[in-house]
């Protein structure tokens, strides 16, 4: 079907066919950098100032370039007839000659130069017919002998006449040729651009397909993870149940006559909470370091006795610390998984509600009662009774510690407080302090911990910045440390 077209046409057709093939391809990656190369070629391509429609056969109008000035004409002539750049000497010389003798005479002279003849021999270039005619007439003048000068004058007048007559037409033709050349350049560039774009598109699609694949894989992994989590939760529940004393009700009202379904959900929620603690509160070790801030408080409490009760003991970090400080520490927690976790470490921990635990204690029997991050989980009535019961249960000189997120920090109050979906509402420090005072704790202190990272500060100075930083950079947690008056104090009114 195509044996007749030239080899250039064949190559062009193959390239076209291959670019449409690129569009049909399945999502596979073409070799990297192909398009990058053709795009940078395009970018670096210099605008060609002197190009001919057909380098092998220049038109007279193209050589005379009447659409350009004299110097551009000489530069073009060198390029086209001699195949090289003009030197500055040649440019000056011929630019002057053009002014006196006209472009046609200069073109004839340069076309006769040895260098031009050599160039034509090498490249097979053919001169325009009219230029050849002018050259012939010029050649004949030399044979005129003494009449040569007259002949030369006539020849020049002939050239000038011709130039006068055709100049507008030549100028138009030269400009048109230049436009045609430019147009074919643009066509080629457009083709290259389209090819590069198609290749990029192809790669893009390849990436898209890969992304889809990875997304599907990720989904599958999430599902698998959930299945594992369910399996592990099942195991955790079994451990907690087998660890509980037989006959004793586990937790409060909900253990009695509850459906199996409810138990499943409860143990799943327990597992969620354990994972949440790890993710948001940091590992057990770093929490232990934090608890060390209370050294002065527990030392004071130790003087009032040696029993300690931790409400919502979680993973048992605080119990650990108290035991080292010489306390007989017990804990309670509503999370069966955490209870099991603590018992594994040898702590005496009950699966019990905080208020119930306090109610079952004898008056003035405990030296230290602590609640880390439980106050914010409780409805006000429960918190209210809890603080009252704590006061009853504490021995004189005993200490109550209630730690909770600090809403003085704007980010905590408006955002991070709600990470934990079982939180109720932030407790401002004065409120919690007042609650303790109301229940009879005369000696209360506020302690603030955990400043946010330096980066949360707004840079700069001035009252506005300072005010803003006071809100953004204040401690993220605080505690009310409340001490029950000792018998010594009690004597005073």
């Amino acid at each position, binding site marked *: 079907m195509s044996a007749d077209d030239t*080899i*250039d046409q*064949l190559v062009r057709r193959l390239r076209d066919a*291959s670019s449409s*093939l*690129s569009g049909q391809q399945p999502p*596979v990656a*073409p070799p990297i950098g192909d398009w990058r190369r053709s795009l940078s070629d395009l970018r670096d391509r210099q605008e060609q100032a002197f190009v001919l429609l057909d380098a092998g056969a220049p038109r007279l109008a193209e050589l005379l370039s009447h659409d350009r000035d004299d110097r551009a004409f000489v530069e073009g002539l060198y390029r086209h007839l001699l195949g090289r750049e003009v030197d500055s000497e040649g440019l000056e010389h011929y630019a002057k000659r053009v002014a006196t003798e006209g472009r046609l005479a200069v073109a004839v002279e340069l076309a006769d130069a040895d260098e031009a003849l050599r160039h034509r021999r090498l490249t097979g270039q053919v001169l325009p017919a009219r230029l050849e005619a002018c050259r012939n007439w010029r050649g004949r003048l030399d044979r005129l002998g003494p009449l040569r000068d007259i002949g030369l004058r006539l020849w020049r007048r002939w050239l000038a006449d011709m130039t006068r007559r055709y100049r507008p037409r030549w100028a138009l033709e030269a400009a048109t040729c230049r436009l045609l050349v430019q147009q074919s350049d643009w066509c080629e560039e457009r083709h290259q651009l389209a090819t590069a774009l198609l290749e990029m598109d192809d790669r893009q699609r390849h990436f898209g397909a890969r992304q889809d694949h990875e997304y599907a894989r990720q989904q599958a992994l999430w599902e698998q993870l959930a299945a594992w989590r369910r399996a592990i939760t099942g195991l955790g529940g079994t451990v907690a149940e087998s660890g509980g004393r037989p006959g004793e009700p586990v937790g409060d009202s909900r253990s009695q006559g509850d459906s199996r379904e409810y138990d499943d959900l409860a143990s799943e929620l327990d597992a969620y909470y354990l994972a949440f603690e790890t993710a948001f509160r940091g590992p057990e070790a770093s929490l232990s370091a934090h608890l060390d801030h209370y050294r002065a408080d527990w030392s004071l409490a130790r003087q009032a006795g040696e029993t300690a009760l931790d409400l919502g003991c979680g993973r048992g970090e605080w119990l650990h610390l108290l035991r080292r400080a010489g306390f007989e520490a017990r804990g309670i927690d509503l999370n069966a998984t955490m209870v099991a976790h603590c018992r594994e470490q040898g702590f005496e921990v009950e699966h019990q509600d905080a208020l119930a635990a306090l109610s079952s204690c004898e008056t003035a029997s405990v030296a230290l009662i602590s609640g880390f991050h439980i106050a914010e989980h409780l409805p006000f009535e429960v918190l209210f009774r809890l603080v009252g019961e704590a006061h009853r249960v504490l021995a004189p000189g005993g200490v109550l510690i209630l730690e909770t997120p600090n809403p003085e920090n704007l980010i905590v109050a408006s955002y991070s407080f709600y990470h934990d979906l079982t939180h109720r509402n932030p407790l401002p420090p004065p409120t919690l302090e007042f609650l303790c005072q109301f229940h009879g704790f005369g000696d209360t202190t506020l302690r603030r911990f955990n400043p946010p990272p330096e980066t949360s500060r707004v840079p700069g100075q001035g009252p506005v910045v300072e005010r803003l930083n006071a809100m953004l950079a204040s401690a993220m947690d605080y505690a009310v440390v409340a001490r029950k008056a000792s018998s010594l104090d009690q004597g005073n009114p």
Partner: protein
Amino acid sequence: MKLLVTANQTPFISGGANYHVQGLVEALRQDGHRVECLRLPFHYGEDHIRRQMTFVEGLEAIAPNDVSIDRVISLQFPGYGVAHPDHVVWLMHQHRVCYELFDPATASPSLARLRSEVEAFDTRHLGQARRRFANSPRVAERLARYNGLDAEPLYHPPHRAERFTCGDDWGYIYYPSRLEPLKRQALLIRAVALCERPVRLLLSGEGSQQAALEQLIELSGVRERVRLLGHISEAEKLTLYAHARAIAFPPFDEDYGYVTLEAMLAAKPLITCTDSGGPLAFVHPGETGWVAEPTPGSLAMALDDAWQKPRRAAEMGQAARQVYADHDIGWERVVATLLAP
């Protein structure tokens, strides 16, 4: 299995060998094995080679860092010098300048010395391998001739074999390869100049011979019939294969040659030479291609023959595709063979 694949590393020189190594590693992984590819820096200098041989012989491949390796698969010189009780060699090629490319007349004394060392190295280590395979019958043949060792030819598919298709014949002969002396594009251009028919030839690829070939095309007066396309994209290559009348592949003593396989995949007959090596294992003269003497005259006759019988060429192409199918060339078979107990 824990598998160690040894191969060479030559930064920024990538070609068929690189694809071969990566293809193997990928196929072994997909088969469910743990695979590490140990790539050893390679430099062709004689002193470098001596050092590399010593280095490889001292390598711990049985249990590097106390991790025991179940099997070592070696592909290239001098990586196959590592010692392992379960060592399988799939020989891509030996160090060719010491073998079939060695010319006593022009070789330097130092190369001559190296030659005997390399030969001893190869005979010793390849002889110790538990099993030996060769990339192609040609490579096996050389191993038998120079080292007296046998090896079973084991073929692997070219890069993304599934993409090659056969389209309408647009009337040209195609030869894709790097423009290097051993690939002998010049021979083919001279042949085109001698053709009686208006045979057209398209050559793709870049290389050291580009300028010389341009000049040759000019001097032979075949500017209207031969074109160097330079670097081409993957899509262009597939198109060029699809619409060719025949594929020419006349290199000197090629080891394997993906061009042969790609031509068969595109259902095109192959024109090659009696001394081209690898391709000869696949071409059945007169049925799936032409095998000419490595002279312009003989090649010109083959080209003319292909040119004047387009229908016959198409039939031969289909037969070539069948040959490919019959050989059962695929990575699955490669993996099964290399991992056989």
